[in-house]
């Protein structure tokens, strides 16, 4: 069925309007009007570019793809450029203006236009940035989520300890343990109350309490905003495909332009140090070196054959590291547990979905949206068992080594507890 161009363009405008509403509902401030998108497709000029720079910057900052501290010293257009370039690279996007723009301020030989920014936005949306924004906003607004527990300290590689402060260290470790126990008991209390709140939501009591509260009023406002956000998201999901079709046409426009020479290799070989310092691969390489070596002959034979095979693969460009080799995937690894999740109280009997109790999940299922708590508990128990095993093994090794060491000393005898 052929539709008139006008009808299509009206539909596209509506769809882009839905997208803009969704972006605004996630708390972004710099959302351009739908018309701006259309202008961007055909190269709208500096004003349009500006709006898109703002939008991309605020998206990247809100979702935490780019840490803000690295760019605080910069101002103005170059700040936007660098931040957006870093953010896009972080999500795996490549474009000439992203990697090649060290020298030129305004772009690469006049080929850069707002269309490039539009494509970058499309890429971000395609790689799940909308969901990230949604999650971020939900975390801000919703009070009854189960949130992450950030207790892990950042460690630098060089740590010192004077032997004189061992006592203080013991005291501190004991104090830390005490804090952990307090946390556990407070968490228990909080969970009890959370359940009561979730239960209260499902109740249909008629009796009217005689007091009101500002907290509840604020809650209502937040929940209303959340509902609006979720509705906007649902609207967007329904019409998403139209947007992608339109983006396809943008890609067409982009490709029909006279093509700039694509760089087949990185611009220069300088490794730029990231703001964390240059520790990136050290621990990884150290681990590889310390791996136990097998019988030399056997391994070398197999290793060489595999190496030759892999080298061939690599030359074809981009080895596939998305799936682990078989033995490796059988190694126990800590399940990657999600950080935030919602708890839902089910009062009616849940529908059996063919979940066999004998199956113990070892990792979080691929795309879980709903999980019975028994499964989640199993995962956590599994993770805990792994960690405890690892810890006990390390302690055993330490004990044996220390005993050996003291044994070498002439005058001391160590009697373990």
């Amino acid at each position, binding site marked *: 069925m052929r539709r008139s161009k006008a009808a299509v363009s009206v539909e596209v405008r509506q769809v882009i309007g839905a997208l803009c509403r969704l972006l605004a509902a996630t708390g972004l401030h710099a959302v351009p009007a739908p018309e701006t998108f259309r202008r961007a497709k055909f190269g709208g000029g500096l004003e349009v570019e500006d709006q898109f720079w703002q939008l991309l910057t605020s998206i990247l900052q809100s979702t935490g793809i780019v840490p803000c501290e690295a760019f605080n010293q910069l101002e103005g257009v170059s700040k936007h450029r660098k931040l957006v370039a870093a953010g896009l*690279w972080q*999500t*795996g996007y490549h474009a000439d203006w992203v990697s090649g723009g060290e020298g030129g301020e305004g772009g690469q030989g006049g080929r850069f236009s707002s269309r490039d920014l539009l494509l970058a936005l499309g890429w971000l949306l*395609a*790689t799940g940035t909308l969901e990230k924004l949604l999650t971020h906003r939900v975390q801000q607004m919703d009070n009854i989520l189960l949130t992450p527990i*950030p*207790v892990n*300290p950042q*460690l630098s590689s060089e740590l*010192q300890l004077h*032997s004189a402060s061992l006592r203080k260290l013991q005291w*501190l470790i*004991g104090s*830390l343990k005490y*804090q952990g126990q*307090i*946390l556990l*008991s*407070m*968490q228990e209390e909080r*969970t*009890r*109350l959370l359940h009561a*709140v979730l239960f*209260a939501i499902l*109740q249909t009591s008629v009796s*009217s*309490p005689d007091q009101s509260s500002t*907290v*509840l009023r604020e*809650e209502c406002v937040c929940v209303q905003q959340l509902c609006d956000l979720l509705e906007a998201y*649902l609207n967007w999901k329904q019409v*998403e495909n139209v947007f992608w079709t339109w983006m396809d046409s943008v890609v067409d426009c982009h490709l029909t332009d006279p093509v700039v020479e*694509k760089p087949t290799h990185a611009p220069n070989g300088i490794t730029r140090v*990231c703001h964390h310092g240059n520790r990136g*691969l050290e621990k*990884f390489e150290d*681990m590889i070196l310390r*791996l136990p070596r097998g019988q030399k002959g056997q391994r070398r034979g197999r290793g060489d054959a595999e190496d030759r095979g892999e080298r061939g693969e*690599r030359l074809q460009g981009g080895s596939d*590291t998305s799936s682990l080799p*078989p033995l490796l995937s059988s190694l126990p690894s800590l399940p990657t547990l*999600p*950080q*935030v999740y*919602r*708890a839902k109280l089910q009062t009616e009997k849940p529908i059996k979905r063919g979940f066999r109790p004998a199956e113990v999940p070892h990792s979080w299922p*691929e*795309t879980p949206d709903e999980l019975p*708590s028994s499964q989640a*508990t199993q995962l*956590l128990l599994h993770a805990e068992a792994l*960690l405890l095993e690892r810890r006990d093994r390390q302690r055993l090794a330490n*004990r*044996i*080594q*220390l005993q050996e060491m003291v044994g070498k000393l*002439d*005058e001391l005898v160590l009697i*373990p507890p």
Partner: protein
Amino acid sequence: MSLLSVVEQAIKSCKAEQARIKDSIQLYREILHTVTPQPNTDCVESDSADDATAADTDVSPGEKEDIELLEQALEKALWVRTGTGPSKKGSNKQCAPRKETKEGMQAFAASKGNQTTTRSTSKSASLARKEQKRPGTSVSSTLGSKASASHNPGHHKTSIHRNMIQNCLVSSAGIVHHQPARKSQQAVSASGCVDPGQLHTSAFHSKNKTNRGNVLSGNDLGRAAAISMPSSNNTAPVSHTAESGAPCLPQQNGTASDQTAQWRSLRRKQNRLWDKVAASQRKPVPGRSHFMERIRATFPKDWPCGSPDQTRALVDRLTHQGYDLIQHCQTQELVAKQTPETATEPGGKTLERWQMTAAELQNFAGQVKQEWEAWDRWRPEGGCLCPTRANSVWSNGMVAPLPPTVTYTTEAELRELEKLRMRVALLQQKMHLEQALLDTLSPQLSSIVPGPGCPDVSVLRDVYSLLGEGGQRFPAIVLDSEPD
């Protein structure tokens, strides 16, 4: 950076988490108090009763003992400091002075907590936080004996008490003020617990103006005090509007129940919407994948697959698995050395399997390293390739899904789930630190060579207990001076 500061940082982050949990607890209590029908209408009594039970449930029996002991110690210190002995207390009523001293002690503890060094501050600060509810309890019960308190012959003591109460409220105001602005409502409702305390303090204010400069300068609590004064004692509401400053009257029955019903219906609507959103996630979106393929086609030939974030997560995961494997083998060797009779066939087979896994890991790691380097070549300024624990990058890597929903049927399930989550997090933290400790101490240990000069025995003992027993048990080291 010193290892001590790392542990201190960990303690700080635990405390920050405690503060967050406390906020949530107060918020939930507030909601429940409003939403569920209350049996009694007299708010002041129920407030103090609530506070009493709240204070009780907050503090576990063990901690209660600690607090009692601390109070006794501080009581003694106060006697010494103020020069009042136990004899002078006999001149007042039996119950009142004990409670007053108690509240004085608590306030004293709070004010002391503000001044002392880090070690005791951590403990008394947490005490002060817990006890910001206590003055409310004890002060409200001494409301009746307010008259006798002001006529206390020990004027010296009263002024000290007054200062201490105000200091306690200042410290609680200080603590409350650290919460983000959005939670200012909860701060105000937290002050609801201290409400009777405000009445008490305001009464003192009107009597002795010189102390006004001390406390409650233009913040929420001050306004709360101003608000609560005109409201009648019988129907003092639990929370009050800080911004409008208008006295909060008990609402009409109709609007209150409307609000509750509205909240309920909004929450249920949100639940329904979430279900729909989750359902929409399961549907594939062909247009999007098509678009991504087309964009990928414009990338250079040697552009790696996936994204830097995926590679980072993979490097991190492989590092952990590798270290795990190394540790397995090492421990196995050490145990085999110690007990050679048990090292037989099964050990050999597992060792071979591990070696195969290690070889596989090495090869795979080589690939991953290549990929990492490829990303590094293209890295712009500000991009980060440090290995990090995967948060929102899943194995398929494409779309970071929304927060999943965990369904449960009984309260016990939810509690167990949360308890496990916390336990796993704490365990990870502990192991993180133990690993850091091992890394820090091993060079020192290897420098202890056999030879002349006896190394520090207590150091050895401490190190053994930290590394081998997690700091819980200690070995005995005996000097063996008999010549062999």
